């Protein structure tokens, strides 16, 4: 759906531009926040409905579905994380479902929501030219989202390390592994710091990279004319796998990192 005035480059750039309010660092990507919060609320609202009337009796269909997901997450947590913790399981559930829903926005044909936003924004009088409206509907293709998630997990890694090993234990781990010798403490510290920092970076970049690439391919497919229909379908089918897998990987790695942080080497 390339409109007459746009070159392909402009079309792609337009699609990859966030709706931003503000300047510099204090700018806010309104579309990212809007869609992610909407999806998060949708997730919590629908699950809360089940939680409110959940009982040990015969479950309804939606309750069955929710319980299936909850049990799947619970099993994943139990497999990797030994010991009692009130936070990890709900954290894993939130990560899994929220990321899944955000990724799922990728399957909505790339022009629908942006076009609706374009004419909606123009009609409501926000902008003079419809082409000034930017709307990126997949929050996980925004580095801010993926880094917000991974940095929260990173903070939890540090909190758990200190909680389970103490400040001293954590400091020891940072300086005396892998080479247990005082002279090699700086080397150890550099190595361990890289290991530690690689965790949030890889978490965020993996999710972002996969979804950004997927989105880009959807946009490219959208430009090839009528043949886009089967191509779009094929890529969407494949992308369902990516969407689920990325949500699962993020959840699984969070659990693994936290269980590593909370156990002695």
């Amino acid at each position, binding site marked *: 759906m390339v409109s007459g005035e746009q070159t392909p480059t402009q079309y792609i750039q337009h699609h990859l531009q966030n709706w931003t309010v503000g300047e510099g660092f204090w700018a806010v990507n309104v579309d990212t926040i809007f869609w992610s919060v909407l999806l998060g609320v949708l997730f*919590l609202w629908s699950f809360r409905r089940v939680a409110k009337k959940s009982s040990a009796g015969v479950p309804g269909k939606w309750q069955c579905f929710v319980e299936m997901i909850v049990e799947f997450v619970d099993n994943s947590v139990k497999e990797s994380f030994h010991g009692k913790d*009130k936070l990890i399981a709900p*954290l894993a559930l939130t990560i899994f479902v929220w990321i899944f829903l955000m990724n799922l926005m990728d399957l909505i044909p790339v022009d629908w929501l942006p076009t609706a936003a374009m004419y909606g924004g123009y009609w409501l009088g926000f902008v003079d030219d419809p082409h000034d409206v930017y709307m990126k509907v997949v929050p996980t293709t925004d580095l801010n989202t993926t880094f917000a998630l991974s940095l*929260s997990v990173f903070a939890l890694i540090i909190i758990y390390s200190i909680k389970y090993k103490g400040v001293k234990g954590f400091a020891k781990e940072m300086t005396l592994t892998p080479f247990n010798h005082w002279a090699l403490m700086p080397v150890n510290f550099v190595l361990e710091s890289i290991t530690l920092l690689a965790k949030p970076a890889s978490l965020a970049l993996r999710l972002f990279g996969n979804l950004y690439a997927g989105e880009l391919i959807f946009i490219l497919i959208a430009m090839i004319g009528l043949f886009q229909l089967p191509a779009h379908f094929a890529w969407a089918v494949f992308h369902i796998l990516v969407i689920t897998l990325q949500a699962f990987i993020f959840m699984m790695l969070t659990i693994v990192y936290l269980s590593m942080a909370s156990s002695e080497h």
Partner: protein
Amino acid sequence: MNINATLIGQTIAFIVFVWFCMKFVWPPIINAIEERQKKIADGLNAGERAQKDLEKAQEEIAEQLKEAKQQAAEIIEQAKKRGAKIVEEETQRGHEEREKIVAAGHEEVASERNRAREELRKQVAVLAVTGAQKIIEREIDKDAHSDIVEKLVAEL
């Protein structure tokens, strides 16, 4: 695609979501699941126990049935024997009764006949005497010939 304040917003949103999930979503659901798992396990156990009980009860029933059959057969056997015995005894007694009745009948008949004969003899004697009297009245004296008549009566 720059890092900007969205990062902070998203972090806050994430923390709020996780907190809400931890407080209001996760515990009720996982409790319900665990409770149901326990219920199902209990149910399965109860079912297994009931199955075992049933098998035991069936075995017991079969045994009791066998015993009852045996007892019934014994009772029937006894009853048959007793019945046969009663029939035999009754037959015996019937025979005896008949003999007795028949014997009594014979005796009565004999005594009746004797009595009749006696009567008849008496009547014949009277008749003979009467007849002889009629004849003798005409021919002989009653007193002169009474010894002959007596002799006649004695011979009857």
